[in-house]
């Protein structure tokens, strides 16, 4: 997409790092007094939405979002190396997330790759500015992890498609202006995948009804989205009928970040073991500092080993000589390893709080405002969404180890 872009010099990148760091430090928003979402799947109130929208707009206006995207559509038209630096500084300074993730990381790069000039004109800039929020309509209630089985129907009728069916786990479905929608245009194909088509669907259409789902945290963030004879323009079809599966798989490639074509920005607040240790500094057990408790220490060290091994494994995955044994094992197990680690780490952080572990968001005595309690419950989104841990284990067993289905 940016083949003509010049490779920046080390000097330029170093200068840029200083510049972006200074800007982020000066412009990092003050604590709003309510807990901010750690991921885009946790935007459950108008208050949170307005805050994040304003932040993303500010980030984009300053030129630190979509840096590798074309200038004519709101980007900066420079090398992705700049965005990677901006992202790493955002993480370091600890600013809020760039929450329009489906737009920035999925729909945007897809439209830049495959869309018409008119599509780019219409959509790209507003994705970056957070004017238009995007959501994703892949999963359905009856088959969460099995996308090939999508049953929502799209039937061509003149200049329109008529959509019927139900999508679930639509992130910000109630706030979104557009959805990337996977629907079945043909149920007669020998391979179920070949009957799917991909749409850039407006959400403000009669017959589309996003109903917020209350999560186990008590908050919102997802909708179940019902389509009842919803008519969308036929021009919303991306590519050809039957190319839906291929395009959906293509969007998954962008997820890996700015290098792969996404706009960049922090996708989630990373929670690490240092945060767990810091959270226990004021906690006592048996009248002594919790961090001196031998049983608790052993648990902490086990988690620290696991965290370090995961981070080293990400490096090892790029060394062919050290991965030839079980090719792709580290790539395929990455989601399982990190999401399950995060789950246990967060659960541990609550358990180690003693009596305060029983308090939740809203209680003035809760440690860190109940951050860990909410973070733990929200983490199930990662061990369930995108293919449950159990499905991941099947995939690894079958594709890496060659075990029978």
């Amino acid at each position, binding site marked *: 997409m940016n083949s003509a872009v010049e490779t920046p010099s080390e000097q330029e990148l170093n200068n840029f790092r200083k510049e972006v760091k200074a800007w982020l430090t000066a412009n990092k928003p003050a604590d709003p007094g309510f807990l901010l979402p750690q991921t885009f799947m946790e935007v459950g109130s108008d208050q949170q939405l307005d805050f994040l929208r304003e932040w993303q707009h500010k980030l984009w206006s300053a030129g630190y979002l979509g840096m590798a995207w074309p200038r004519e559509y709101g980007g900066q038209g420079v090398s992705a190396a700049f965005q990677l630096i901006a992202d790493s500084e955002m993480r370091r300074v600890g600013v809020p997330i760039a929450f329009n993730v489906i737009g920035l990381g999925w729909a945007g790069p897809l439209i830049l790759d495959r869309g018409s000039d008119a599509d780019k004109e219409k959509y790209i800039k507003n994705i970056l500015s957070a004017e238009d929020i995007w959501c994703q309509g892949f999963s359905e209630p009856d088959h969460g992890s099995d996308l090939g089985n999508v049953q929502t129907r799209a039937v061509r009728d003149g200049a329109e498609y008529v959509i019927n069916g139900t999508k679930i786990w639509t992130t910000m479905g109630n706030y979104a202006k557009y959805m990337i929608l996977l629907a079945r245009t043909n149920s007669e194909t020998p391979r179920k995948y070949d009957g799917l088509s991909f749409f850039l669907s407006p959400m403000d259409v009669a017959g589309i009804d996003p109903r917020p789902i209350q999560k186990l945290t008590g908050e919102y963030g997802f909708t179940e989205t019902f389509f009842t004879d919803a008519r969308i323009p036929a021009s919303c079809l991306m590519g050809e009928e039957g190319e839906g599966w291929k395009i959906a798989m293509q969007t998954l490639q962008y997820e890996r970040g700015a290098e792969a074509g996404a706009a960049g920005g922090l996708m989630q607040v990373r929670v690490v073991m*240092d945060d767990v240790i810091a959270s226990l500094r004021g906690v006592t057990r048996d009248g002594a500092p919790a961090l001196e408790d*031998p049983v608790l220490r052993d648990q*902490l060290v086990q988690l620290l080993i696991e965290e370090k091994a995961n981070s080293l494994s990400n490096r090892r995955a790029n060394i062919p*000589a050290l991965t030839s044994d079980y090719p792709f094992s580290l790539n395929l197990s990455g989601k399982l390893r990190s999401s399950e680690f995060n789950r246990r780490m967060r659960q541990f952080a609550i358990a180690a709080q003693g009596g305060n572990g029983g308090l939740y968001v809203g209680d003035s005595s809760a440690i860190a405002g109940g951050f860990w309690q909410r973070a733990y419950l929200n983490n199930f989104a990662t061990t369930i969404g995108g293919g449950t841990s159990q499905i991941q284990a*099947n995939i*690894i*067993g079958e594709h890496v180890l060659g*075990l029978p289905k």
Partner: protein
Amino acid sequence: MSNALEFTAEQSMILESAREFCRDQSPITQVRALLDSTSGFNRDVWQAMADLGWLGLAIPEKFGGAGMSIGSVVPLAESMGRAMLATPFFSTTLAAQALLRAGTVAQQEAWLPKLATGTIATVALADGGDWGVEDSQCLAQRAGDSLLLTGTKAYVPDVESATLILVQCQLDGQPALVLLENQGLRLDANTLLDQTKRAASLTLDAFQVADNALMDPGRTSAALRDIRLLGALLVAAESTGSTAACLDTVVDYLKTRKQFGQLIGSYQALKHPTVEMLNAMDAARSLIYHAGTVVDEGPLDRDAEIACRMAKAQASEALAFAGDRAVQFHGGMGFTYECDAQLYIRRAQHSQQLFGDPWHHRKRLGSLLLDDVG
């Protein structure tokens, strides 16, 4: 905390040739054929390893070695573990490292060229089962130009095959290392859980050696600490390789054995723990190659200590889990001596304690990671 993980083209070549050599020289039939042998290893294979330069890999060129870092031995150790190839390689390598770190010039010149070409050596560290005791009860006393050694060293690896033994003892209230040649020593062979390995206890009763057998006292404490950490790393690398071999054995069985009309590998009760074995092995593998990147000629720094301890804790856990499940997943077959699962679980339980078990290392990691944070 360091997250370095580097692997050069040269190391890749070493890994590739090591894996091929070990696979060719140590098929499982050969591993089994050696179980009942006295020495536990094949002299021809040992000589071939020496000829390939493996014994001198981490010995400086001036002593006839290749002058690479001790970390470059990690792929060799992993490959040996993968093929269950047991030789006095670890013992000899650690003895050479001890000589490099605390030997006098005369001792280095006398012994390192020999160790680089196949003379077998070992280090007698422990007095007994407590790896957490760092000082020895084995006493050295001065008598004119001689030293008199009295005490017992427990389960000294490969000592019966060794020409040279570095004995940890206590001299003038300080830790000391003394070189003994293997003549006239009382050795009592152990019966080890891991039948691929050999060890014996060494009993010294006013055993007399010339005082020039004493290694440099000023560098001995640091060298002993390094040797324990490097020993932990080498066992971790071997255990990681053995975990992969164990995993292969389990996967083969799960892909061929049918029960209730289905290949048993299709049952998630077996499939998922097998994936856990893979993930545990992968974690160990990343940690051993990280440790291999950060260890150096010593004294080992904090990052290297953390890396070696994490590697050993993880690799021992991984092999213990894999070996245990390998027996169970083979069903009735797993309960037999004929089934290869026994090789892995026996190695797991034996290697687990060598140079400190996971509890030992995690306790020390607690001090390193939770008390110094700042």
